[in-house]
Every structure is written in C-alpha cells, then in structure tokens.
C-alpha cells in the first residue's frame, strides 16, 4: 500500500545533491539579461523619458519603454479562462506603463549583455513625472474626490455581499450579547527563496519557448498569447524545478515580457532574474485587510449571528483583486455553518505594491478576524474557549449554506480535542492563573480554520494524467499538476502505485512541466492538486491496470477475472501464485510481433465538488512585558485533511504553514511610508521572516477522515496550516495579558504601544509589576 506511507520524495535525491535544475540553471550561451527601469515615485504620470544614453552604452542591445509595448491591457491573475463576464479578472495591466501606480512600477526595460551593463544603463535613463498624491490609506482612497488610480475605473475594484442562514438582523436582536471588534492585518510577502525568474527564446522563426519558475504553466501560456496576440500553440512554457511559490507564482509576472523581448530580438534568449529587492516590491504581496466583526451570542454559548465588513487593499493593480476577499469570506460558511451570517467586502486599488495570491488566499485575514471575534464572544459569556468552539463549529452532515452542499467529512471536533489534550489545556490554564500580573505573563490560545479543496464552483477544476508502461516494467506518469516543492509529484506517484499495485519505486513521475507535452491542468494553487488530480490519476491508473491484466490474460490464457497485480507482478489469484513479473509482460506487449501494443492510459477529469477541510492551532506562550516579546512555549496544529497520503511530507506542509503563520503573527510586515509609498524593508535583513533560531518546535497531528469525493479520501492541505496560528497567538496574548490587540503582526512595536496605552509599561519606561 503506497497511500498512507511516508515514502521519500521522488525528487529529494536530486535536490540534496544539487543536481535538480531550476530556471536559472539552464544555460544559453548567447542569453541576454533584461532589467526593469522602475518608477521612483508611487503615483504620477511620465511626462518625458529619454533612453538615448542608455541605448548608446556599450553592451546594451535594446531599451524599450511604455511607448513600445502592445496597447491591450491584460489580467495577470493565474485563473483558468472564465467563460462568463462576471468571473473575469480585471484587465488593467500593460507590459510597461506610462501611468505610475506604485513605487517600483515598470516604465522601461533594458536588455544588455550582462547585469552590470544593464544596471549601468538604468542609471542613464532620464525620466520626468507629473506627480500625484499617493493614495495609501482606505480613507484617502475612498474619499469622494480621490483621483482614480486607473483612469476611468473606480478605486473600488470589487464589492460583494452575502448572507446565509436566518435573518441576520433579527438574530442580532435576539442575541443575549453582541460583541464587536475591529481588526487589521499586515502586508506580508511570500519570500520564496528562489526569486521570480523567466527566460524565453525562439525555437524557429515563430515559436516561443518560455522557461519559467511558475505555478501555472498552462495559464501562463494562454495569457502570453493574449498579451502578444499570438496563437497559443506557438507558445511553449517549460517549468523546471521551482524554488517555492506560495501563490506569488500563480500570477503571470515575467513571462509576457520575456516573450515580448525575444520576439523583438529575433528569437535570442533573454532572461529576467529579479533581485530580492525587486521581488519583494515588484511581484505580489498578501492583501492587507481592515475588518469589522460583530458577533451575536447566547448565554448558553450558541453563536447566533455574525456580521463582517472587510476592506481589502489590492495595491496598484488588481491581480487576483476581489477574488481574494471573496474566497476568504466564503470560508465562514464551512467553519460556522449554523450562525446567521452576513458579509460585505470591498477591494480597493492603492498606490502600494500589488497584492495577489498568497497561501490560503484571503482566509488568513478573514479567519484571523473571525477567530479573534469568536474568542472575544466566548470570554464575554465566560465560557471555556474550547467548549465554545465545540458547540459552534461545523460537524459532518452540516450544510454549507453558501454552496448548498452537505459537509461530507469533518473531523474538527476531534481536532479540537486532540489539540486540547496535547497542550494540557485544563492544567495549564490553572497553572497560568498565577501569571496574569507582573513582567512575565503566560497564556493559552486557540483558533480554528476551514478551507476548501480547490476553486469550484468559482472556476473550472480540471486535471489530467497520462501513464505509460515502460519496457522494464516500470511506469512513467505525466500530470499537469505542478510540483513547486509542495510534494505533488510524490503523492501522484503514491496514488498511481496504489491503484496499479506497483512498488512505489517503479512509478516515475516526469518532473518538468512542458505545455507541449504534459496533460492539461491549471496548476498549483487553492490546495487543489492532490484533491483534483486524484480522480484523474485514479481513472488513468485503473484503465492501465485493466489493460495490463487484459494483456496478461492474452499471454497466459488465464481468464482475466482470475488475474491480479500484486506488488508489481502478475498473480493468478485462484492459485495464489505469481504468473510473471511486470518486465516480462512489458517486453511482450512491446515486442511480440502480433499481439499487444505500448500500454498507456490517459484521463482528464473535471471536479464538480469541493471538499472543505478543517483544523485548529493551540498555543502556549509567555509574554515578556518590558521586552515586548512573545515566546511560544508549545504549539500544535491538528488538521482534518481527509486521508493522509504521506504523513511525513504532510507534516512538512503543516510545519511550513504554521511557520509562515508564526511569522505573520509576530514579525512579518512590509513597512510603507504613508506619505510617499516607499517600502522601507525590501530585503531579507529588514523583512523579518523567522530564522532557524526564531521558531519553536512545531507539533502537528491529524484527524483522518475519508472524503468520498476524492479518489483516495484526501482533501486539501497545502495552504490551510498558515491560517490558524496568528489568531491562536493573538488569543493567547489576550489570555496572558487581558488585552485584545487586534492588529498584526504582534511585533514588539505593536505590543509596546498596546502595553503603554493600557498602563502595563509606564511613561518612564519602567514596567508596572
């Protein structure tokens, strides 16, 4: 049984030996490099640009400006093509722009023989601007006379409301208590260690090959075609190993430009390799949110009503835009399906770096506010935080009233019990009663989460798999599902091995994605892949299994009903005896002059289901009041992601997500000057993502349920772990200090202000003990 086993990753050896090739590792002897000329202001319009000196610099091959690029605006979000207008992404971007919308906007691009020359040339470009007041804060953006950041369209990119359940107003009226809170989340960044990088060249006179670090090869291909007005079949996107994405590569950022440049330069290879500084300000970030939450609760602990109003800042261009707030908002109905709920969200343009997709896509913001508000409600009625959750969270059989679908698998209550036991909730709560005053305080916190397994019914969910028997009795598998480090190739190999009854080692997944070759799939996002691909893989593997057995029956004259595959060998089930090994069968199928053929199978599958997943985080912390620092003593995240295909690799997803959550909770934040739009900390020294010395041991556990809509019982896991740690930590700070600190991150600066405002630190700088 390959499913459920902690097999090693299919690509681990390639990676530890340094053999694994990433985009930068592909070498073209004549490759040129391109560097963007970026705006030094956040809002304005270029009045004049002079590139003559740059063009004349030795080693410069070309300089292009906004005057040279196609005029059709395009969307960059990595979504499948939407056939209806209402689901289309905002087309608001040009390859280069004259209108400057954030500090770092792309006005021109230099192509040179190397980076040194390119950088020198950038200094020689002269530009003058008409400068406008940068619009950074919601009140300024929404002001009646505020300048339209995109002329002709509102500064509100998207807005929607929904309600589900009973009448919300009535429910609030009936509630014994109404608890309100306002919350803020920060602009954080993905910080995958491999920056964005793409290069393109032409195979012949009209075919463009793009090699790119992307999560969405097939979507990138389509959007490049749209931007350059080239038939899709003339574009080939190759995705080698990818050094992390976390959503930032679910956006078409460099591919259209490198394709444009190679077209302009007669097919010569051109690469854009963003620096870390460019990657931080010039790719995508997580949308900062401003959220007001109102919760109606009964004395018995039932949450009866909820209202949430959210503002999401998408920055200079829409990218994923309002989809993020919409997706985040929709998770309420699977987490607390029985409360009457209304939701209103607006997404705003701003003169800030562009926000896009990032791990868990709006849920870290919405569920942070939701779980802080839930904690506040529990405290209001004096109910134990765990009991309160147990009373209100989703259970199997509940109806998700937004989707109208029954929740077919839900282990959240068991997750809560496991987490409570692990953290020693009861005893610790008692022990920590002594630590509610003085300079060192201790507390416990928890938060729940719900997430989805894909994007259906908002977007199409499609996956493809192709399996071919090799002459040595192994199989090669091709999937469109995109490996970016999360381990999808490995779980695909496990699924194929399971269904074929092959040894895991005999299932080889073709690593690189190539849109000319690999089956269609929309890519790595929405924690969709293992779930959606499961049914494609299952169908293809089942088909191949039948073909193998049919061929064995022809070879052996044994009735196919009496044949089976066991551990990669053909077995006569009636005699419980091995008939032949797979290599023998394969050789026959390939080389027998009359019978057989190359045995292959292929399936493409559309998922029309979307399984909700659940989980929770428990945390035990110490707050040092005078130092304004939080120390995590213990932490556990418990997840219901259905059947766990690979426990060790799944643990890795939880660790990584929880770690990112800890960063967002305690230290990560892109700091912007609200006057100029300048980002102060565009590098890994000043953007404080935790080092090895900054994270505690992260524990994890699973509650395994079986999700019937997946071929192997599995559900989403990649993104969810990032969601629950920040609210759990905020709730623990509340437990320790009695303070509701409702803005992220809970950095020393945030804590200092809160402690000072509430008299925990006195004016002279001493602490009140």
């Amino acid at each position, binding site marked *: 049984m390959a499913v459920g086993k902690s097999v090693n*990753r299919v690509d681990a*050896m*390639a990676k530890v030996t340094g*053999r694994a090739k990433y985009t930068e590792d592909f070498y073209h002897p004549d490759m040129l490099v391109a560097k963007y000329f970026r705006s030094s202001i956040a809002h304005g319009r270029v009045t004049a640009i002079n590139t003559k000196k740059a063009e004349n610099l030795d080693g410069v091959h070309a300089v292009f400006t906004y005057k040279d690029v196609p005029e059709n605006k395009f969307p960059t979000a990595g979504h499948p093509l939407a056939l209806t207008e209402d689901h289309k992404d905002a087309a608001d971007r040009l390859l280069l722009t004259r209108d400057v919308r954030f500090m770092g906007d792309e006005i021109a691009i230099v192509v040179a023989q190397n980076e040194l020359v390119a950088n020198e040339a950038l200094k020689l470009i002269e530009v003058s601007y008409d400068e406008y007041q940068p619009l950074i804060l919601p009140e300024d953006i929404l002001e009646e006379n505020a300048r339209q950041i995109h002329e002709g369209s509102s500064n509100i990119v998207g807005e929607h409301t929904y309600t589900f359940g009973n009448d919300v107003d009535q429910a609030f009226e009936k509630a014994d208590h109404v608890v309100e809170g306002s919350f803020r989340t920060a602009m954080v960044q993905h910080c*995958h*260690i491999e920056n964005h990088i793409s290069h393109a060249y032409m195979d012949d006179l009209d075919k463009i090959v793009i090699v790119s670090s992307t999560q969405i090869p097939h979507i990138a291909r389509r959007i490049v075609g749209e931007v350059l007005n080239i038939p899709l079949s003339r574009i080939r996107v190759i995705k080698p190993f990818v050094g992390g994405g976390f959503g930032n590569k679910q956006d078409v950022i460099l591919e259209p430009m490198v394709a444009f440049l190679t077209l302009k330069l007669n097919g010569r290879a051109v690469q854009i390799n963003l620096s870390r500084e460019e990657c931080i300000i010039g790719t995508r970030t997580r949308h900062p949110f401003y959220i007001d939450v109102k919760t109606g609760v009964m004395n018995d602990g039932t949450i009866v009503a909820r209202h949430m109003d959210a503002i999401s800042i998408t920055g200079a261009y829409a990218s994923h835009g309002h989809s993020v707030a919409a997706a985040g908002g929709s998770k309420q109905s699977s987490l607390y399906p029985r409360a009457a709920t209304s939701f209103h969200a607006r997404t705003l343009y701003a003169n800030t770096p562009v926000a896009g997709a990032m791990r868990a896509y709006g849920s870290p913001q919405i569920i942070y506010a939701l779980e802080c508000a839930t904690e506040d409600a529990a405290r209001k009625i004096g109910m134990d935080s765990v009991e309160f959750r147990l009373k209100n969270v989703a259970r199997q059989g509940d109806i998700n009233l937004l989707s109208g679908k029954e929740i077919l698998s839900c282990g959240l209550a068991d997750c809560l019990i496991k987490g409570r036991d692990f953290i020693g909730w009861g005893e610790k709560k008692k022990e920590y009663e002594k630590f509610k005053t003085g300079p060192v305080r201790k507390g416990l916190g928890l938060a729940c989460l719900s997430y989805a397994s894909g994007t259906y019914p908002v977007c199409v969910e499609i996956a493809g798999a192709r399996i071919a028997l090799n002459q040595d009795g192994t199989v090669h598998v091709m999937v469109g599902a995109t490996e970016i480090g999360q381990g999808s190739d490995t779980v695909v190999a496990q699924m194929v091995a399971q269904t074929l009854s092959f040894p895991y080692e005999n299932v080889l997944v073709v690593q690189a994605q190539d849109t000319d070759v690999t089956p269609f799939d929309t890519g790595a996002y929405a924690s969709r892949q293992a779930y959606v691909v499961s049914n494609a893989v299952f169908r293809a593997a089942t088909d191949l299994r039948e073909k193998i057995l049919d061929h064995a029956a022809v070879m052996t004259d044994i009735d196919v009903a009496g044949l089976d595959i066991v551990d990669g060998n053909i077995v006569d089930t009636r005699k419980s005896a091995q008939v032949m090994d797979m290599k023998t069968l394969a050789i026959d199928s390939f080389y027998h002059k009359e019978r057989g053929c190359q045995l292959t199978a292929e399936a493409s599958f559309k998922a029309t289901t979307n399984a909700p997943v659940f989980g929770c985080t428990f945390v035990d912390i110490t707050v040092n009041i005078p130092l304004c620092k939080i120390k995590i003593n213990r932490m556990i995240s418990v997840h219901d992601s259905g059947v766990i295909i690979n426990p060790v690799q799944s643990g890795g997803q939880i660790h*990584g997500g929880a*770690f990112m959550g800890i960063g967002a909770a305690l230290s990560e934040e892109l700091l912007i000057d609200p006057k100029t739009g300048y980002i102060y900390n565009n590098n*890994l020294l000043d953007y404080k993502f935790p080092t090895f010395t900054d*994270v505690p041991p992260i524990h994890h556990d699973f509650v395994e349920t079986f999700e019937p809509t997946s071929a192997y019982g599995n559900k989403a896991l990649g993104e969810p772990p990032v969601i629950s740690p920040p609210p759990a930590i905020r709730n623990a700070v509340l437990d320790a200090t009695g303070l509701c600190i409702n803005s992220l991150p809970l950095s020393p600066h945030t804590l200092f202000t809160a402690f000072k405002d509430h008299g925990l630190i006195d004016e002279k700088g001493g602490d009140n003990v």
Partner: protein
Amino acid sequence: MTDGHFRQISFTINDRERRLRVDIRKSLAEVLREDLGLIGLKQGCGVGECGACSVMVDDVLVDSCIYLALWADGKQIRTVEGEARDGKPSKVQQAYVDEGAVQCGFCTPGFIMATTSFVEKCKGKNVSPGDIRKAHAGNLCRCTGYQNIFTAIEKSIESD
C-alpha cells in the same frame, strides 16, 4: 572589458585542482556557477542574508555571493556537488532525504553545506538543540519551518 579584469588563480574544487582565469569582478558564486558549471549552489539574495549559496572554503562555511572569486586562490573549495561519493550520498544528504527535510529544494544545497560544516566541527562534542539552531541561522528556508531539517541535522550528528 579589459584584460585588467582577469587574473589567474588556482584552487582545489571538490578535491580537484583547477587553474582558472577569473574575472576580478565576480563573486565566488558566479565563478562556480558560470565558469565551472557547479549550479548546485543557489542565489536567493546576493547579499549574504539567505545562505542558499553557502559553500566551504578551507572547511569554513561562507556565503559565496559575498566572497570574491579571487579570494579562492590557493584555497580548497567544497560545494554540494562534491559531497556524494561513489554514487552514494553523504550521511547528511541521506538524512535530509530520509527525514523529509526537503521541499522546494532551493535552500537545500546551502543547508547541506551548513550541516556538513557543523557536523565536522562538532564531531565528538555534545551539541544542544540551541547549538543546532544557531549553527543554521544563516540559512533561510521558507517551506519547512525548519522542523524536518532540525531532525535531519540531529540524525546527521548521531554516530554510526
């Protein structure tokens, strides 16, 4: 580019002696990747903040992105490519594979070198979890939360 930009140096790379004309403007990372094709080391920041380009120079761990290639003259350089011997991964490499310490893999070559350096330095000494964490604080990983890497390092320092 004038000839003044080049200088002849000799060094040992993964046990092999090399003489090379290097561009004085290049970092060791650039020479290893571009001139010697040793693409195992990765570049994530270019300023010594992420550790993905870590290599060993005379058995000392350095960020090769902020180390002039010229300085390699007369030195012994070790990169991730030299760690597997006779078709077998090193103990550190095997531990990373076995413990699920690899995800996207972009930080991995740098981590392998950091752990290798740490293991060699602390041979026969007692090390605490804090020592392990501190010795790897110059290598950033965004995928793993460092958890399985920690386990892999522990396994790497176990005596055979």
